[in-house]
């Protein structure tokens, strides 16, 4: 659905094999650390770092360098204890700071834009003026490679691979040059996840980094629901003990609704941002609503409100999706009544009459407070 990071280990494996260079980095987790370290040499120094698509690792102490083989375990444990699962261990390349260079490729409408700087390193943001950019083409290849200092054949291979492997973004900060070869001390790649079906064996769905560390169990449940469905489901938990819960629908309308809560100064009270779209079926909508109701149950706040709102759908069936939502609400109706939860509904689209009527009947029958509006009420007016 969008640009998603792959692990640094995977990124380097792909790029080094593309350039015909060997790569000996190890992807390390709690399960394989003892075995993995056996193959390392006690004469070399190593780098241990978190490999979960996180930026600014050095600044945040998620990267240790110049480490002996027998210390790797200790440093790895430090990172595991912080809640990380996936680490990268690779040889430390001794170098001076002015050898560190910066290179990035970003796909733009006009073509692949190459960003480069001779002054790479940790605080590249402070040296942003030194970063130059140019749209790559076979005509300016030589000129670009000259100013970057990378052999033109290597640069061509990189950019061709960027397209052929359906990458969307590549960044190395820093890389160093050794005997005409590029050594990527750091490498981040985002692939176009929509291209999974054409990417072949280069990368697969399993390589996409979906950050699971630190996610709430509800977010994980929504993720797994989204993976199985042709429709789209999204859930972010913001403040578990807030009093505003959302079950929004439609990509654009959901943002507009969330914006409205934000502009009313109530962002801090938002428990979750939830959005479904793409005409999910009744069962999927039921499961999704159940996940959010679990958050409602757990929050310690008073005066809870659930917004079930969205725009006027083009093709998502309101009757079907609302049937699922109502089934979920019904299964938790005792809790909703006991906690005096308010339910505010605004929606339109195919079969809206039936959908809205069912919802309003449900609230009446269960004596739950709230209101149900159709498209005659402006989208954001439901937010109070």
């Amino acid at each position, binding site marked *: 659905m969008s640009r998603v990071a792959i692990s640094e280990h995977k990124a380097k494996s792909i790029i080094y094999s593309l350039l015909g260079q060997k790569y000996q980095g190890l992807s390390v987790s709690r399960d394989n650390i003892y075995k993995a370290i056996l193959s390392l040499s006690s004469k070399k120094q190593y780098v241990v770092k978190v490999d979960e698509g996180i930026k600014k690792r050095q600044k945040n102490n998620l990267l240790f360098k110049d480490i002996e083989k027998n210390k790797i375990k200790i440093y790895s444990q430090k990172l595991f204890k912080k809640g990380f699962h996936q680490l990268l261990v690779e040889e430390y390349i001794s170098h001076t700071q002015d050898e560190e260079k910066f290179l990035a490729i970003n796909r733009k409408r006009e073509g692949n834009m190459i960003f480069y700087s001779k002054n790479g390193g940790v605080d590249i943001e402070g040296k942003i003026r030194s970063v130059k950019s140019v749209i790559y083409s076979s005509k300016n290849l030589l000129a670009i490679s000259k100013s970057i200092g990378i052999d033109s054949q290597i640069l061509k291979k990189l950019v061709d691979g960027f397209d052929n492997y359906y990458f969307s973004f590549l960044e190395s900060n820093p890389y160093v040059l050794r005997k005409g070869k590029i050594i990527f001390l750091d490498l981040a790649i985002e692939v176009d996840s929509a291209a999974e079906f054409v990417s072949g064996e280069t990368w697969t769905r399993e390589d996409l980094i979906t950050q699971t560390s630190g996610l709430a169990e509800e977010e994980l449940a929504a993720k797994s629901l989204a993976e199985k469905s042709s429709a789209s489901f999204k859930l972010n938990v913001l403040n578990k003990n807030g009093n505003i819960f959302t079950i929004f629908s439609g*990509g654009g309308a959901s943002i507009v609704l969330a914006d409205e809560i934000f502009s009313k100064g109530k962002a801090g009270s938002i428990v979750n941002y939830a959005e479904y779209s793409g005409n999910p079926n009744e069962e999927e909508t039921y499961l999704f609503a159940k996940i959010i109701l679990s958050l409602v149950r757990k929050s310690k706040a008073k005066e809870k409100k659930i917004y079930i709102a969205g725009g006027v759908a083009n093709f998502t069936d309101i009757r079907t999706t609302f049937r699922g939502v109502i089934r979920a609400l019904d299964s938790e109706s005792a809790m909703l009544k006991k906690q005096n939860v308010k339910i505010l509904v605004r929606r339109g689209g195919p079969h809206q009459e039936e959908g809205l009527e069912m919802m309003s009947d449900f609230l009446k029958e269960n004596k739950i407070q709230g209101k149900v509006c159709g498209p005659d009420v402006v989208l954001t007016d439901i937010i109070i």
Partner: protein
Amino acid sequence: MWSRCGTNRYYYLDMIDFEKIRNSTPSILMLGSYPPIIQSILDFDYLTKKKHSSISGIIGTSGKSQRYFWGNEDILIPVYRNLEVTPWGFNESINLFLSVVSARRVLFTTEITVNSLPNLIGGTIFAENTPEIHSLKIQHIASSQKVFIIGPSSVGLLLPGKLKLGAIGGVEARQLFNPVLHEAGNIGVISTSGGMTNELLNIASSLGKKVSFCFSFGGDRFPITSPVDAILSAEDDPRTSHIIYFGELGGEDEYAIADLIAKRRINKPVIAHIAGSVSDAFKTPTQFGHAKAMAKSKDESAKAKMKVLDKAGVLVGESFTEFVGLIGNIPTKRSETFLLSTRDNRLLTKRKKTIFASSITHETDFGVEVLNKDLLEVARGHSFTYIATSMLLGKEIKSKEIEEFVNLVFKLIMVHQYREPSIP
């Protein structure tokens, strides 16, 4: 043709000539089949009193034709396996396409379509999840063949009273009675989001505004018709006097739009809102529903983009409510009306397919009916034998004896299982 605009900002010129579409008779080729959308286009055509359906054929794999309603009568729309087996003159007769194929087939099918139809003006692509590179390749093809392509992830293009190319405006017959869909006016509506397109049509309608055209360019990273192309098309459309623009956080297209306004390439009033200010409430950059909807840098945030548009002279509604207020202030005029008679209202509800087996079973908006009664109702009140026999005969059986007799036959079949006679 590339145009350079500001430093390091470029825009690509692939504009849509709305007036050309208005002056032509739409003849649409469906790539793939999505029955609710096809039916809604036919209903739109019927309601706006066109002589016949604007959909001329479907490229698909099942059967030789598909059955739809024209008013409350059945019509057949021909289905072809590909564009090589279509009848003589068919490919020449098509001037628009609507693609509802899955993302993995978008590039391949669009390429063949654009290259095989000599009189094509353009089309829209519905699929979500089209790879970025495929969209860019299609853009190249569209540009070299001089056709417009809206999408991917677009709900379509609407020219009130003239053309409904996609789900835009709704798929249920009831939604299509909204006057904004058939009364053409002076406001061009452009939106990233498909759902918000419909919402904006709805808002415009409730404020009594009339629309000259409306489309969603889609929330992908590289919409084939870019936001810039969209605004320029609106600027050059003689029937449009005001432009409504709904964007989202992510991407930098709005900077190019601001540049064009500053350079006086765009002179019509633009009323805009960029959604996504809430992104500030999230700790890390968050990916919202659409592929492009993520602000990795400050420049891509909703606030920054609204600021640059505001500076360029766009009427920016900082909140959605403010945006709606600004829309309310747009002077409007109705240039053309394609009105429907109220009798059509009745025609479109509770219609049923008549060509095959219609007296026995059919689907309505409220469920399945058997012999003109609700299936669940019938099942509750009668035995399986009664239902099965009635359906076989095509009418309800009245005699109790027949029901009992058939029931006995059923039981006998179940007890004495049928065996293949053995060859002596």
